[in-house]
């Protein structure tokens, strides 16, 4: 068995999109969330088995802020890919995700990424239509609805991203 590889993955998303919930449920974490407010980043790890070898996704959970300007872009240096998280019940967070992506692309060029439209379990409040999904997918985006509560879409998204960054 070949040794495990690591990849740096950034976790980006607007305020209150459920990033922390995702991390809490699906990710190995040792550091306190206070790092997010103090240092602006918290490191977590997600290990994905990929074709007989382990891929450690080292997740840089960047402080979720709607003010894109305050994001410390230096934290993205050396990232192999990133995960955008938006709240499916609040279209404004999708806007934030789009602008985050633009910002990353400007500074670091095209990188593999996925978009998680979170809070899928709140079906009644769901606000993102199929048309928007299609638009994004046609633009080459990997978009999947997810729920930190039910786990829907989360593992798949990690596995997909791992395959793309470690392949």
């Amino acid at each position, binding site marked *: 068995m070949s040794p495990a590889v*690591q990849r*740096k993955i950034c976790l980006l998303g607007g305020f209150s999109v459920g990033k922390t919930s995702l991390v809490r449920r699906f990710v*190995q974490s040792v550091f306190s969330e206070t790092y997010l407010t103090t240092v602006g*980043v918290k*490191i977590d790890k997600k290990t994905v088995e990929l074709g007989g070898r382990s891929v450690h996704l*080292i997740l840089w959970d960047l402080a979720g802020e709607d003010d894109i300007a305050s994001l*410390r872009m230096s934290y993205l*240096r050396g990232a192999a890919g990133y995960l955008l998280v938006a709240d499916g019940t609040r279209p404004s967070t999708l806007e934030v995700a789009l602008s985050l992506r633009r910002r990353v692309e400007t500074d670091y060029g095209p990188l593999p990424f996925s978009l998680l439209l979170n809070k899928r379990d709140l079906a009644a409040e769901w606000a993102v239509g199929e048309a928007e999904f299609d638009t994004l997918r046609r633009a080459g985006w990997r978009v999947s609805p997810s729920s930190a509560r039910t786990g829907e879409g989360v593992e798949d998204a990690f596995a997909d991203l791992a395959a793309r960054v470690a392949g």
Partner: protein
Amino acid sequence: MSAPAAVALERLLAPREETGLDRKLLAGLLAEVARTLEPGSGAEASAVEPVDPRLEQLRRLLLGREIEVLARLSAEIEDPERLAAAVGRVLPSAIASSDARLGQVLAPALEKATRASIRSDPRTLIDILHPLMVPAIRTSIGEAIDKTFQSLNESLKHALTWRGLKWRIEGWRTGSSFAEVVLRHTLVYQVEHVFLVHNRTGLLISHVASEDAVSQDPLLVSSMLAAIQDFVRDSFKGSDQGLDSLRLGDFRLWCEPGPFAMLAVVIRGSPPEELRDKLRDALATMHRERRQALEAFDGDPSGLGDIEAALAAIAAARQRAERAPRPGFPWLVALVALLLLGVAAWGGVRWWQSERLRAMEARHWSTYVERLRQEPGIVITEAGERDGKFTVAGLRDPLAVDPRQLLRDAGVDPARVESRWQPYEGLEPEFVLKRLEASLEPPAGVRLRVAGNRIVADGTASAIWLGRARAAARMLPAGGPTLDLAGVKNLGEGPLLVLRTAIQSAEIHFAVNAPLPSPGQDAVLDKVAAELKQLSSLSAAMRIPARVTLTGHSDDTGPGTLNLSLSLARAGAVLVLLKKRGVDPDLISVQGAGPLEPLEAGGSETARSANRRVSFAVWLEGQP
């Protein structure tokens, strides 16, 4: 082959500008060869054809191998790529074996190229030089100051201790400075973790932990460290440097940045600055040896397995605390200390003993002096200790206790005592009593005792003794004890006086001119002898001195001188006769009275017969 032939062959093989052969020369040459072999052949050079396939054949025959080599060489030289490869193969050794001129030739070109490179991208050069520069600049001023402070602190701390002294000796022995020795012994640390963190991604390249270290997932720690470094750099703009050390309680985190990877080391305890140098050296070495692998690292550690050994070497760095007295018990020191202690103890005991002896003697002495003070008839005027001797002076009644006797009882060495006593007569009742007893010789029936400030006499005594006692009482010094004789009953006409009367009434008679008693006087002599013996014992018992005088008498006939000697002889004869009857002769004295004390006056025979006698006189207390 002849010499000209050889020269010709050489010329043939020598490189020519034209590729074609000098056929004419060759033909001449061959003809010459033929002639040499067979002189009559008549071969001529002119007979050679301009083009002769046989010649080509000969050429191949003779030079086939050389032609092949030449072809290969020319191909090598003419193809620039192959030429470059060939030169590349020999260039390092060519440069290595070249003399100084090569350097002189190359230097200007290299300098020019380097300058151009730095102008276009200084970063590249910095990356290249980093591993080389770091060791050179590591002894920066800041570190020097750090070291100075560190060693100063330690020096001060240990300057005056026993351990400090030991280290000074060690420094002197090993030729190192005291500060170095102190550092060597006092810096106690252990490297617990070594992380090699990729700069760009923050991913962990390699991690080594000491055996007993505990930590979180090193992958996460590594990235968090990288994030914190980024945070610090971003937060303090203008500073290109991140954190280089953090301290948390007993732990220190030292970060050493390199061009592509950062070395982060977690240390428990107080590491010396030299460890920092060690980290830099290790990091520089890694960058020198694995530069490309480090630069291209993308999260796959498989190509960098050997880095772990370098980290393990760092993780092995530690300095154990010197356990205080365990390694090698300092026997010599202990022995000397014990010896000193022994001497001190011995001295102490001696001193204590002598002090105790001295104290004991002083105590005995003061007890003695105190006893003397209490003793009647002794008055101490001066007592003390001078020049190691005890001195005592005062007045002493001769009847008082002997101070020397008392000295022995008190346990004081008489040799150490000087005594000066003046005699005096004490008025203590006891002494007055003693003195009276000595002078009055009280009879058996009388007892003297002290009652307050009086001497009281009880019992019965003769009037004579009483008279004497009264006289003595009157002689006692005024203010002193008095003698009370009221309790003594007067014996009056006691048995002694009866005896006196009886003895004095007796007479021993003699015939005319006879010195010996007349016949029939034995009964009188016996009676008187018995009475005298009684007197003697009674007077002794009553302590009343008694004396008896025998007086011999004669009648008035015959010459006077004869009568005197006759009377004395008669007294002496009676004394002898009494002595024969057991009377103590010391009681008796004799005298002769001649005819001078006649019993009866008159010249009749009866009177004369009565006067020829020995009479007795008894003296009690010197009184008749």
